[in-house]
């Protein structure tokens, strides 16, 4: 890696650790969530620098999406669902701190102490590193893993289809809804212009700029 590469790597490493610490320092659920996201994005950048472009970008993609999903869980399960009030992000303070510092020390010691093997064979071309990493990790089991991923996803979709036959608003009989609600619901039924002559047909439209 070039000197500039090492400098960027070091900067990303500092960002990753600092953002990780920020998760426990800030007093807002949203800031903690996105500090964690930033930490993972920095780690994704490290992977890109290690020529694992696919894994790096996918790490960014997955972790950012995961944090946004966590926001949805926030509204489902928290006592302060909007997360707007300042609140401590810390539960089991001492234990959490001990576990985090211990894990960090263990991993850092491992990274420094392990006798890393010398490179064997040729360096794969950038386009081949994803395949090379996949073969190194999964070897002959790759077709099985690919098959399982499709089956797992199909299972998730089918489970959802079975578990949620109706949406949250679909329990009320149709006629019980307000006319306004029906207007939102039915895309058809445009029945002329509104009394003030504006574009209004009982449906909701994109707002536009005149506001």
């Amino acid at each position, binding site marked *: 890696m070039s000197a500039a590469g090492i400098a960027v790597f070091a900067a990303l490493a500092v960002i990753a650790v600092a953002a990780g610490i920020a998760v426990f320092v800030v007093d807002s659920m949203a*800031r903690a969530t996105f500090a964690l996201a930033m930490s993972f994005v920095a780690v994704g950048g490290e992977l890109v620098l290690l020529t694992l472009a696919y894994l790096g970008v996918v790490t960014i*993609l997955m972790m950012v999406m995961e944090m946004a999903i966590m926001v949805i869980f926030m509204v489902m399960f928290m006592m302060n669902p909007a997360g707007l009030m300042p609140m401590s992000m810390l539960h089991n303070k001492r234990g959490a701190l001990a576990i985090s510092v211990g894990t960090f020390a263990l991993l850092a010691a491992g990274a420094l102490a392990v006798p890393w093997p010398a490179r064997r064979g040729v360096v794969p071309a950038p386009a081949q590193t994803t395949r090379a990493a996949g073969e190194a990790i999964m070897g002959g089991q790759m077709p099985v893993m690919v098959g399982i991923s499709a089956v797992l996803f199909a299972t998730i979709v089918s489970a959802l289809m079975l578990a949620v036959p109706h949406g949250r608003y679909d329990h009320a009989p149709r006629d019980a809804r307000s006319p306004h609600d029906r207007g939102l619901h039915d*895309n058809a039924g445009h029945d002329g212009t509104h009394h003030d002559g504006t574009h209004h047909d009982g449906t909701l439209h994109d707002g536009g700029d005149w506001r």
Partner: protein
Amino acid sequence: MTAVQVAAGWSVVAAALIVIGAAVAAGALDAAVDPRSRTVSLSARLLRPVWETSRLLLAQRRATTAADGLLASAGSVLPLLIALAMVAVVPLGDRVVAAPTVGLVWFNAMDVVLWIAWWLAGWGPNSVHPLVGGYRFLAQALAYELPLMFALTAPAVAAGSLSVPDIVTAQQQVWFVAQMPIAAAVFIGAVAAFSLWGPFAHPAGTDIAGGVLAEQPGPARLLVRLGQYALLVVGSAMAVALFFGGGAGPVLAPWAWTVIKTAVILAALVWLRHRIPVWRPEKLMRTAWLVVLPVTLLQLLAVSILTVAGAAA
């Protein structure tokens, strides 16, 4: 058609300026075809981006109580920044700013960052209507993101590469839209969805006073609006690269074909904006998971079979 090549370093600035210029043009077109502005003269409508810019820049600042300024600003700036990050991998004719081996995944990762961007735009101001809008967007994102991902997978499978220039090159015989029309339609729909556009504008709905846009003070609102149009521009240009042969076409230069095709898709999106009712997230979710997702997966299966059969033949 020649292969797509990486352009010189200054092209970063050129790409950003082109996107912003195209976003302003899209804003003017939107004003021109907005059915609610029929009473205004055409020249005044075409200049709406200018009026809007000056109005928003001069608008009085207002602040909400206990807003999270940092996160709200991030929400205002991110849509435009994401559009500019996306355009790095989108070719203009036979030139592209960057050609990473995983350009397609980069585009996908950036559109996922929009989940955070729109939610922060809603959450940051500490106000009810934007907050509702932010959560509406997350529900909408859950509906459109998986179909979008599988729609992106189809051209990658057909080209055997995640690199956008490779995907453009793979369409020299036949444009992918002919082979995978559903994936192309789903992709263009998802572009509208992540730009909060037309039928997917529920997170910024008029029923919640503009939702994620409600508490954006002047300049911040200008940035968000610009970001929205920039996302539409970049999304349309990406659709051209992935499904409509990139710069391929007779007589004219490749860059001209990219511009023409992008303009057609962009104009269609802009024209449809006020002409399709807004789609509420729970309806969208049902349609997306029970209809669009299975159909997109079948499309992917068909593409995979065609690709394997083509490779075997």
